[in-house]
């Protein structure tokens, strides 16, 4: 069986003036359909760059991103991104924001009534149907992120890309949204890649955790499988041996073997 998503020897460097800075070096990873993979690393290690490469928002310098054996070279709705700062359009209501995506992606294939039902289905999925006529400024940060997830899901993507989706939220809201994402993942089986710098979040949500070494020229240091049965419950897991072992492994990687050295140069 060939991999669903394959990152094939990817290098990424940025040229600025005469200087070329190498951000990512020799990234190799395969992800199966339905898998939930987290990418974790210290800030500046290029994990967001990696997500942008998969999304097609930035181009690889060498190597290739292959989705179902087809090369990715531009962004598209089959690789929907949930941005860290939600990126909802503030002049549109919640419903209109999702409608913008749905009418663009399914405008030719589904009737107006079908599209309406589809938007409401996705709003229900993130429990935001009650706020359909509100503008982003009128709802809380957690709600905005829910709508951002609904917009991404409404594109019916092959891969869902989450770019530190809960980074800007408080701990309680973050827990709610993690539960929501777990629930959605178990219902839809969507292949998901999530960038995070929260160890607990990574262990709780992922099937595998990809740990990045520090930049420049960051690469994948280690990949940890999380052999926890689903559905997972955070209360039970807090004393689960496997959970604690995985957590320890990630912590050791991040804080012992690849400690973040600030301004090393």
């Amino acid at each position: 069986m060939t991999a669903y998503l394959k990152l094939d020897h990817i290098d990424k460097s940025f040229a600025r003036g005469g200087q070329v800075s190498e951000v990512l070096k020799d990234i190799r990873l395969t992800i199966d359909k339905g898998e939930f993979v987290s990418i974790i690393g210290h800030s500046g290690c290029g994990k967001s760059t990696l997500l942008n490469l998969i999304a097609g928002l930035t181009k690889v310098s060498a190597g290739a991103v292959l989705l179902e054996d087809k090369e990715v070279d531009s962004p598209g709705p089959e690789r929907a991104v949930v941005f860290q700062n939600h990126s909802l359009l503030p002049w549109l209501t919640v419903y209109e924001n999702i409608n913008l995506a749905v009418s663009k992606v399914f405008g030719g294939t589904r009737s107006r009534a079908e599209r309406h039902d589809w938007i409401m289905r996705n709003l229900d999925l993130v429990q935001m149907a009650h706020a359909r006529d509100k503008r982003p400024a009128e709802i809380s940060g957690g709600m905005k992120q829910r709508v951002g997830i609904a917009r991404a899901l409404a594109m019916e993507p092959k891969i869902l890309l989450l770019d530190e989706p809960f980074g800007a939220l408080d701990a309680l809201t973050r827990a709610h949204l993690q539960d929501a994402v777990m629930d959605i993942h178990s219902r839809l089986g969507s292949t998901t890649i999530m960038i995070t710098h929260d160890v607990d979040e990574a262990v709780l949500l992922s099937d595998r955790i990809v740990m990045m070494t520090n930049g420049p020229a960051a690469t994948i240091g280690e990949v940890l499988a999380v052999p926890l049965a689903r559905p997972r419950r955070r209360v039970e897991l807090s004393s689960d041996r496997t959970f604690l072992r995985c957590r320890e492994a990630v912590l050791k990687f991040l804080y012992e073997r690849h400690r973040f050295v600030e301004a090393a140069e």
Partner: protein
Amino acid sequence: MSIQTIEDTTVKAFPAKPAEVIAFTAKARRRFDPIVIAGKLASALVPPAIVIALMLIVWQIACSSPTASLPPPSQVWNEAYDLIAHPFFNNGPQDIGLAWRVLISLQRVAIGFGLAAIVGVALGALVGQSIWAMRGLDPVFQILRTVPPLAWLPLSLAAFRDSSPSALFVIFITSIWPIIINTAVGVRNIPEDYRNVSRILRLNQFEFFVKIMVPAAAPYIFTGLRIGIGLSWLAIVAAEMLTGGVGIGFFIWDAWNSSRLPDIIVALAYIGVTGFCLDRLVAAVGAFVTRGTTAK
């Protein structure tokens, strides 16, 4: 530890909804309270009324000596009473009320400014979107925008060989620069995230323009339009003084030639009030169109 606090939360609903409703009705009731409205009106109207009254008194005293070169307010009131009291009289082609003259000037402004708005937003979008268009066009714009409105008039008279299109052109060329420049700044300031959203959705150029660029840049565009309409009202009066016709600008020139100073003063008041209304009109349209846009 923070994990401990997260674990115990099972609440799914979002609270504080009833509180919102109560606050809203309370606010709504207060809005229709006549005493509050009267108070607000008074605090808005009384201070300017006092200032205007004081100015009129000072002016009356300063100009009441027989040797004064300018008429005092009492003389203006007496001699130009028909202009003040009957803005809409119509006694033949050259003898019409000031309101008609203002409307004729406004019509010119509407055409010239309307064209400037369309062309200005389109050019501004181009300059904001393309780095090469900006490099090529921006220096030209920066030089041309400093040319005073009337400096264009001889050239446009020579080009159009008629006073009416010349006046329109002067309005157009005066008001277009702030529209272009503000639109360009607005387009350049569209957050990268909105562009990424449009790239992921694969919006085409036209969809991006209508659905992302114009709404995202709308606050900037309306700033440009507001400056532009102010400039075009400045330009029309000056242009009409030279091109003739029946506008409010020409009326002033005509009154000067026949030494009717009180008429000029009344016309100035008309121009000022009209300019103020135009500014507020564009600002109100802008506030209506961009509601919610500026909020983060």
